[in-house]
């Protein structure tokens, strides 16, 4: 059943113009990488900076926000979700299938963007290691962001605004002022994961992304965010009510 729903959701996603816009947006880091290559700087640092600033801070959360809210929230809003909801399908399967598509789409777009941009500037095995580590982090981040924004889109029909405030204000501005907000920041979990993976791949160079959370803390908190998001989305979908008649 999850396969049926995710196939339909993929089809819906591919049919939307915003998906094309996201792919164009994801090409920006690749274009920047083409301009930044062969500048003689440290390839690892260039790759890390490029992926951090353009993909992890911008392409990844924006893609997850658009796909995560489109997967279920837009259908609930425009009324087409009624055809899915009046089917004898467990609400948990609906959430699982929609999350699969939103997270998978985000991972493909943002992960692809990070991989392509990173490999363009990478010159040695150490910098390739950094790029691969960053892609692992982006894919993990795609799942977390997509789950969070999908849950938000079932809870409120202002999920786009809420998601933007979360990424720009909470993870952006506040994180640089108050270190404590890092504990509840998907961006920080991603950086910790990248740190751990790049440590495995190219230990001598240390972490090119700077100081991060402990890996175990990040993994546990990330799992908690994922579990809570999925649980909230399922619970709210079970009790979802159609709006009053016009």
């Amino acid at each position, binding site marked *: 059943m999850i396969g049926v729903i995710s196939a339909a959701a993929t089809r819906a996603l591919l049919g939307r113009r915003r998906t094309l816009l996201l792919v164009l947006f994801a090409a920006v880091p690749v274009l920047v990488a083409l301009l930044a290559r062969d500048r003689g700087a440290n390839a690892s640092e260039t790759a890390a900076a490029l992926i951090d600033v353009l993909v992890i801070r911008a392409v990844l959360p924006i893609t997850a926000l658009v796909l995560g809210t489109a997967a279920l929230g837009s259908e609930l809003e425009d009324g*087409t979700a009624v055809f899915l909801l009046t089917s004898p399908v467990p609400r948990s399967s609906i959430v699982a299938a929609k999350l699969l598509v939103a997270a998978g789409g985000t991972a493909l777009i943002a992960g692809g963007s990070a991989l392509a941009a990173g490999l363009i500037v990478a010159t040695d095995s150490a910098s390739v290691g950094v790029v691969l580590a960053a892609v692992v982090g982006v894919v993990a981040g795609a799942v977390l962001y997509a789950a969070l924004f999908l849950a938000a889109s079932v809870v409120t029909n202002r999920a786009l605004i809420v998601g933007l405030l979360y990424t720009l204000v909470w993870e952006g501005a506040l994180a640089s002022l108050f270190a404590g907000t890092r504990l509840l920041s998907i961006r920080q979990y991603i950086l910790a994961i990248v740190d751990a993976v790049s440590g495995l791949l190219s230990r001598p160079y240390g972490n090119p992304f700077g100081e991060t959370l402990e890996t175990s803390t990040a993994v546990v908190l990330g799992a908690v965010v994922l579990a809570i998001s999925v649980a909230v989305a399922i619970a709210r979908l079970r*009790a979802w*009510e159609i709006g009053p*008649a016009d």
Partner: protein
Amino acid sequence: MSDGPALDSAAASVSRAVDPASIVLDHVSRWFGNVVAVNDVSFSVGPGVTGLLGPNGAGKTTILNILAGLLRPSTGGSSVAGRGTWRDPELYRLLGLVPEREAVPGYLSAEEFVVLRGRLQGLPPPRAVEAARRALATVELSDVARRPMATYSKGMRQRAKLAAALVHDPPVLLLDEPFNGLDPRQRLHMIDLLRRMAAEGRTILFSSHILEEVERLAERILVIYSGRLAAAGDYREIRRLMTDRPHTVIVRSSDDRRLAGSLIVDPAILGTELVDGHLRVRAADYGALARLLPRAARSDAISLHEVRPTDESLESVFAYLVEPGRSR
């Protein structure tokens, strides 16, 4: 009139053996914020076609959405085939809903859409395709079934939604304003189709704000006005209630005062009143007035310039039906 003789009480039907095709609302109310959309409505509907009649905003859609498990009753209970309708996805094996909203995934063709619905009902792919083709043929949409639904007219979309609700052949069918957007020929076809499906033992509940539609199709009628069940029963019975209510007509004649005097002596005339240069006559029913007025005019040699009914809107009919303390 919730104790009307033609209305099955919800309690009575619960004690009967549960019919797989029965729909019950048991003292259901639903409010949105401060607005009461449905106010203490009870009814029970079995196989056959039942019409939910009422003006726009009366609460028909809310009632259908509660029955379809898309809204939680604020108080009271709603069940289909003995199962509570709220938070039970398994309900949808028994139920097909045709919502009023037009929204369908426009990038899908009707065939893809109905096959998808069949797959969501748990049909394996070959059977889902077969069931979809049958449902599309039933609603006469086979010719265009491969075109994206975004290119459809309103009536075609309406029929695609119906096919999607029929794909798993449910015993209970709920339709919200199914005749909206249909041309006269499609309307006849839809009436014919719903009658046929009811004859096969299905329970069909549809809403409409047009009396003639309900009259042509429904064996039983539930009249909803301002969120309350105003009347329930056989359509002839309801029709009689609607025609035999007191009527007010405005009369202009050569001598209003004398005409009033000779009308008021008849017990069928409930009152007369001279206002703004004309005469308002309130009569117990139309028949009596149609008989008395010309007779009085002839015997007193009064010429009638104008006779005009004042309250023929469906709204006023409904309002009359829910008037408290109305005598029957």
